[in-house]
């Protein structure tokens, strides 16, 4: 068992963090808002918390909280104008925002430029990651069953109808966006304090797309979907190594194929497969 943890400890940590990041995107998705800016929010959380612990010796929990709050504050400012945009255009606007954040991190001195911040104290443990993930998942499950969750769902199904029904769509859309940014900020801070180094490239376009893929493969219709998607996709390179597909293009190909098969045959993600399988056996 201890050998298992030696080999796969980091993998389990990354899976947990990726799941937390996937959840951060799940929140705006549950309100029908396709944001491609969550990796940038994670970047903000990561940089702010790392700068606080490195430069000011701030206590770890405080630094994480500060990073998450900064991400949420940026989301307040960005969300007000951006969330008036719908659908694909919103995705593009958040993507442009993400690029601006990444380029800022490349050019600023305090973020260490392209070389990134090196020497971030190692504070994040498996317990912290899975504790946070558990709390986030529990909270989001409660939220889902609440009036707020119901409002999110009605906006996702039909924004105009939701407005007609008297739901303050602007308020709820912004709340979902900000809550997502807050969770992304926490995940980013934890990531920074796990990894010793953070660089701007880790929070770019490829990362944004990856978060979306976690949600799609797992299914963004339940809290468990994104977690499942993140777990499976984080584990896949290791699983493929087990069947001796160790390198290069075939691995890329398998990733693309899984995504394609899921979107074509399981529109609600792999989590719906488990639900259906359960349903048919009963």
């Amino acid at each position, binding site marked *: 068992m201890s050998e298992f943890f030696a080999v796969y400890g980091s993998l389990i940590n990354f899976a947990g963090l990726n799941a937390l990041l996937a959840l951060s995107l799940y929140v705006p998705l549950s309100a029908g808002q*396709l944001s491609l800016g969550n990796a940038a929010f994670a970047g903000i959380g990561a940089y702010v918390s790392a700068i606080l612990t490195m430069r000011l010796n701030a206590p770890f929990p405080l630094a994480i909280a500060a990073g998450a709050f900064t991400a949420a504050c940026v989301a307040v400012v960005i969300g007000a*104008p*951006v969330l*008036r*945009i719908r*659908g*694909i*255009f919103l*995705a*593009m*606007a958040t*993507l*442009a*925002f993400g*690029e*601006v954040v990444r*380029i*800022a991190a*490349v*050019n600023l001195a305090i973020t260490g430029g392209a070389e990134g911040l090196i020497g971030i104290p190692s504070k994040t443990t498996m317990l912290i990651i899975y504790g946070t993930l558990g709390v986030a998942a529990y909270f989001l499950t409660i939220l889902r069953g609440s009036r707020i969750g119901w409002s999110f769902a009605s906006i996702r199904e039909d924004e105009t109808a939701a407005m007609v029904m008297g739901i303050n769509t602007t308020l709820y859309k912004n709340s979902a966006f900000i809550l997502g940014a807050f969770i992304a900020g926490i995940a980013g801070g934890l990531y920074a304090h796990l990894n010793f180094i953070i660089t701007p490239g880790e929070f770019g*376009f490829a990362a944004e*797309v990856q978060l*979306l*893929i976690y949600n*799609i493969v797992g299914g963004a219709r339940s809290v468990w979907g994104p977690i499942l998607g993140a777990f499976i996709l984080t584990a896949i390179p290791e699983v493929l190594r087990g069947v001796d597909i160790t390198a*290069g*293009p*075939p691995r*890329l*190909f398998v*990733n*693309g*194929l899984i*995504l*394609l098969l899921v*979107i*074509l045959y399981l*529109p609600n993600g792999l989590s719906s497969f488990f639900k259906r399988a359960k349903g048919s056996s009963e």
Partner: protein
Amino acid sequence: MSVFIQQLINGFFIGSVYGLFAIGYTLVFGVLDILNLAHAAIFTLGGLSALWLTRTTGLPVWASFCLATLFSGLLGLVLYRVAFAPLRRRADSNLSGLISSIAMAIIFEAGAFEIFGARTVRFPQGMFAVRVYHFDSLTFTSLQLEIVAIALGLMVVLSLCLKHSRTGKAMRAVAESETTARLLGIPVERIISETFFVSSALGGAAGILFGLYFNALGPDMGRSIELKGLAVIILGGMGSIPGAILGGIAFGMSEVLTVALTGMSSLRDAVAFSVLLLILILKPSGLLGRGRIRQA
């Protein structure tokens, strides 16, 4: 002053390639309301297949260009059949289409990797004569002229076809309303397939021209133009053909002018994306307003 004019030439040149790339992007969006993120992968495969043809068959460049453009169009058909056609009946087809196009982009990129390797590959030196023209201190090459001519030519042909040809009119009808088009007896499925063919052929052609000029091709060459292409079609108004052309040139200009005016090239992408963000917030329909494909 001559530095400034040289910069305008630089911007116009790269902008016309951006425009050619973006036109295919915007065409599919105009007709189907779907953002096809595999367009950049087609761009890459177009360039690489032209290189492969030139190298292995020894065909002259123009012949490889035509064949590789055709091949890119066929890839577009495959793309449509595999990734978009099965999703057409779904309510959320524009989101699921976005995802399946990402999946196809990954698969195409894996293919390019497998066949061509990760290294940058190049057309053989001296395969075609490139003359360099100097006027005073202005410099441009014959290759640049040819590329601008081909890019603008393709764009004009496409615009004319959309306006006057039967297929073009049918495309515009489908873009306007699929149901109405069907009632009018237009074979909607076929028209959409043709749209994908044309879009991908143009994307591939842009990849070939880009590859010929910079002569550095590889599986990653689509990556930087992918985001720029998105910026261009938003700038020009999603679905608008003239918008994509002007948007492309405007974007190319904004890149060089940032460098020319601030002297800080590190600001280049930041300016481009900030402008994009502003446009989306202030005027989401793009600079050319609602000029959609149906008004091409």
